């Protein structure tokens, strides 16, 4: 008996769905485990993404807290929810508002990169704040899970084929709109 496998296509909505589910799973440890630990004069503190954002807010750094909250908590969640909605819309068929769905996909594709903010932030702080016993910052395992979730969401977006949002095969139009 021989098994025959059809070749795996990266650009397919089933691949996108699998990657999105994997990203959602990775977001759980990413939000539960500490991403950074800070040791200042013997006082040790570990922060998750959310507790770090709350701490920034308490320190009065509201703008920074809002940026980190948007990039690290809102964007991954919104991106996964949006991708799920698009995949469900394709699965159900009978697409009514393809233009709006396509715009949603374009927005999700654009905002995804900003989730990398927390990863670059952790890398920068880990490299800079190394003052021995006075003050030290270390990256923790949560940031690895978060990085995996971000990479998986980016891959899921790439794997999604937005042409599936349009019911009819693409004909040739007379001219594009010039603005």
């Amino acid at each position, binding site marked *: 008996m021989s098994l025959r496998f059809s070749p795996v296509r990266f650009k397919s909505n089933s691949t996108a769905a699998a990657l999105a589910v994997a990203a959602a799973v990775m977001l759980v440890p990413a939000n539960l485990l500490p991403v950074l630990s800070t040791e200042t004069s013997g006082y040790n503190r570990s922060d998750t993404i959310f507790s770090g954002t709350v701490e920034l807010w308490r320190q009065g750094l509201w703008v920074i807290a809002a940026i980190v909250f948007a990039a690290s908590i809102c964007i991954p969640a919104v991106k996964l929810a949006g991708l799920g909605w698009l995949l469900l819309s394709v699965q159900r068929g009978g697409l009514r508002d393809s233009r709006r769905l396509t715009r949603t996909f374009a927005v999700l594709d654009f905002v995804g990169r900003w989730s990398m903010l927390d990863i*670059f932030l952790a890398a920068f702080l880990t490299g800079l704040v190394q*003052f021995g016993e006075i003050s030290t910052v270390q*990256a923790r395992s949560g940031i690895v899970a978060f990085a995996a979730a971000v990479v998986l969401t980016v891959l899921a977006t790439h794997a999604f084929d*937005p042409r599936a949002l349009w019911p009819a095969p693409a004909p*040739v139009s007379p001219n*594009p709109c010039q603005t």
Partner: protein
Amino acid sequence: MGNDAHLTCRLCGYRHRSIRLAPGERALCARCDTMMATEGRFGPDAALVFSITGLILALPAALLPFVNAGKLGDVRVSRLFTGVGALWNNGMRTLAVLVFLCGALLPVALLGTMALLHVPAHLRGRAANIRLLPRTIRVLEHWAFPEVQVLAVLVALMKLGDLVDLAVGPGFWCYCAMAVCLVLAQRSFDFELCNPAPDTCTTDAAP
């Protein structure tokens, strides 16, 4: 204009006839409104100029200090790869590689690829005969995040403002300038070079 020259929307797959765009003009998909092509305001060589400028700036960005931090007389100099090295030494090697790729190597590779694609066109009046380059550019665009790294450093500086004495170094400004050059090069990128086959295709093609 040849009949076989088309602009294809990257999102909905709708195909349009190729058209001539004026400087600053954009071509939108007639079906989904996605921007398919744009004619840059800075002239035909802008992408090449910005790409080479970005590549030149990448060297001081990598070598010069990003940030000098001092606390109780102890001064620490952070460079572009200091964080990558710290993560690597911390045992987080995959994360270090990701930060290195997205923050340093891939932006430079993207600039280099765009320059490489434009140099033969500039010198010989004909697009590079390397079909792999446009595809490489599209892949790299999704993984090169220098602007996100700039924002991360700014956030870190504001976060550390009260804890340590900070001084921004020239490396960071060079990196910011490189990120700006990358964005401008992408905006000026001539997508006609991606579809060089039809000689009559005038200014643009699918992104």
